């Protein structure tokens, strides 16, 4: 029941304007019936309204309305032709002639830009590698050959975190292809890659200079590769996981079979130092190795590396005093290194009779931890059947393997990480740009060594 007494004015007006619903109107009428003085007020309002509406307006002479319309139209005619602002804008800037001029200018600018872009960068087969790699054939995942690789949907879902990881500390690092190539990235892949039906000219058909192996430059390699592999073939090859042309039963030298690589790449990759110094790993290392007063101030990556090198120098001299060498300890060169056998104490034991290394134990312990974590991830990956979770685990494994390389800077670790990254790309968990970025990161880690 509404409080008509309290809000009488409001309900009176709403009732007068027909704004009360049927039920409320009935209740209000009942209220008025019970309160004659209030009903009197309603009558006063009604009278006011009715009288106001019925007020007679002045009589206007015949023909007045036509005259008013005429005067209005006359005044309107005197106004410059009305056009909406959009119509005016279109006519001003988008008349056909002007549009043609603008379009022609834009075309010239775009063409000039494209020509200069290609002149600067060169025309390359792999320019669209990122997209093309997506279309390549699926390959089974490395970690569990019996498993189906993750679906395209999974790939899309989990490429996000990879991109995010890369974007965390974006820093554009230009790495020349020559550096990449000389570091062995391409040749390493060559050795692992599958055969194709494409048949480049055998080495015997190449010129003597072309057949040379030691002094060949990147440009020469590129030129040779372009000669050896027609562009269409090269395109196809790039889609097939950079599988290189190789006739059956005949080994093509890596210098000839190298795919066409860009002169330089400008890729956003995560800088190891910036991330590393934030990590628990570094903090533990800092706590153990760096004096307490120094850890109060966060160190930049360069400083950390200097300290690490200094510590290693001290270690080497300590070992030298004991007629030992660092290489006596196989944790940096484990032939049987495996994610399934990562116990660093075992590595230490692999050199029986040798004294334990004091300082690297810190590094080893961290490596042990990382490798144990890596093992757990791989184990989980092999057990898990949900493709989404498997994809997530694969990404974790990539991250872990990169982190291990960051610390160990060991060739074996790098090779292992490369393999994992390659298989991630084959399984379409990551695209080619990410693949390149990860590999570049690995090179950088190793260079810091």
């Amino acid at each position, binding site marked *: 029941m509404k409080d008509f007494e309290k809000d009488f*004015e*409001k309900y009176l*007006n*709403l009732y007068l*304007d027909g*704004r009360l619903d049927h039920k409320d109107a009935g209740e209000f009428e009942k209220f008025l019936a019970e309160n004659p003085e209030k009903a*009197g*007020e309603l*009558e*006063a*309002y009604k*009278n*006011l*309204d009715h*009288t*106001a*509406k*019925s*007020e*007679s*307006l*002045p009589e*206007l002479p015949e023909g007045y*309305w036509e005259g*008013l*319309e005429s*005067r*209005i*139209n006359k*005044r*309107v*005619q005197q*106004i410059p*032709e*009305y*056009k*909406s*602002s959009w*119509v005016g804008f279109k006519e001003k800037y988008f008349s056909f002639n002007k549009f043609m001029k603008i379009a022609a200018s834009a075309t010239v600018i775009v063409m000039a830009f494209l020509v200069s872009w290609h002149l600067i960068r060169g025309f390359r087969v792999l320019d669209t590698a990122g997209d093309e790699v997506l279309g390549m054939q699926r390959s089974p995942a490395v970690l569990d050959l019996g498993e189906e690789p993750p679906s395209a949907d999974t790939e899309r879902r989990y490429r996000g975190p990879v991109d995010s990881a890369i974007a965390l500390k974006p820093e554009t690092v230009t790495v020349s292809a020559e550096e990449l190539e000389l570091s062995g990235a391409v040749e390493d892949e060559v050795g692992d890659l599958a055969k194709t039906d494409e048949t480049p000219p055998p080495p015997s058909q190449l010129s003597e200079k072309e057949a040379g192996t030691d002094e060949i430059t990147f440009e020469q390699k590129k030129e040779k590769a372009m000669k050896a592999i027609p562009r269409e073939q090269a395109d196809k090859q790039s889609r097939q996981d950079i599988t290189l042309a190789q006739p059956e039963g005949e080994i093509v030298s890596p210098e000839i079979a190298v795919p066409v690589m860009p002169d330089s790449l400008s890729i956003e990759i995560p800088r190891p130092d910036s991330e590393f110094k934030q990590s628990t790993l570094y903090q533990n290392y800092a706590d153990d190795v760096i004096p307490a007063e120094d850890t109060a101030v966060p160190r930049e990556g360069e400083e950390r590396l200097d300290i690490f090198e200094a510590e290693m120098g001290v270690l080497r001299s300590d070992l030298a005093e004991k007629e030992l060498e660092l290489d006596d300890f196989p944790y940096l060169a484990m032939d049987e290194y495996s994610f399934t056998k990562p116990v660093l104490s075992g590595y230490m034991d692999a050199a029986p009779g040798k004294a334990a290394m004091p300082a690297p134990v810190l590094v080893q312990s961290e490596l042990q931890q990382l490798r144990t974590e890596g093992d757990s991830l791989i184990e989980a990956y092999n057990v898990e059947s949900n493709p989404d979770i498997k994809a997530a685990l694969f990404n974790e494994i990539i991250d872990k393997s990169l982190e291990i390389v960051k610390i160990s800077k060991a060739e074996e670790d790098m090779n292992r990480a490369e393999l994992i990254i390659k298989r991630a790309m084959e399984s379409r968990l990551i695209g080619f740009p990410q693949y390149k970025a990860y590999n570049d990161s690995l090179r950088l880690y190793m260079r810091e060594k």
Partner: protein
Amino acid sequence: MAEQEKVKFEEKRLVSKARKGDKEAFGELVRYYSKPVYYLAYRFVRDHDTADELAQESFVKAYQALDSFIEGKSFKSWIFAIVANLSINYLKRKKRETSLEDSIPDDILEDKKLASNPHEQMTADDLGKQIAKAVENLPEEFKTVFILRTYEDMSYEEIASSLKIEVGTVMSRLFRARARLKDELKDYLL
């Protein structure tokens, strides 16, 4: 209702053409609305010549401002808002230019005499004039809402849309305007 819909459709078509610069289409809109526009202006200013001038001015303003008209809205509400604003501006200007005493026409002074004798026999038209005078004395914001609601029979929502105010504000102003008028005319209304 069907007729209303037809008018609405026709109005929409004419406005659309007028927005593209079609003065003949705008002339059709003038033909539809010149009468209500004039009377609305008259309700505000109570002077034929001024109402005539305001009606013309309203259409000219409307033509010039067609670009700001939101298609789909009521042209009637839109042009009524223009008329109301022009009328209120006119009354404010007039108020500033003349003293209160000078602004009251002789016939109104004559009517005041009538008002001072409420018990005399009054015709409905006389009462209407009394109400009109009382409305004139209302504050502008109350007056506008009262006129649009009472004389033009516009809904709360239409008034709110025209004057760009909230519906609650319309209600508040309308109720207060009525209350004031009722108090002022209490001797005549019952």
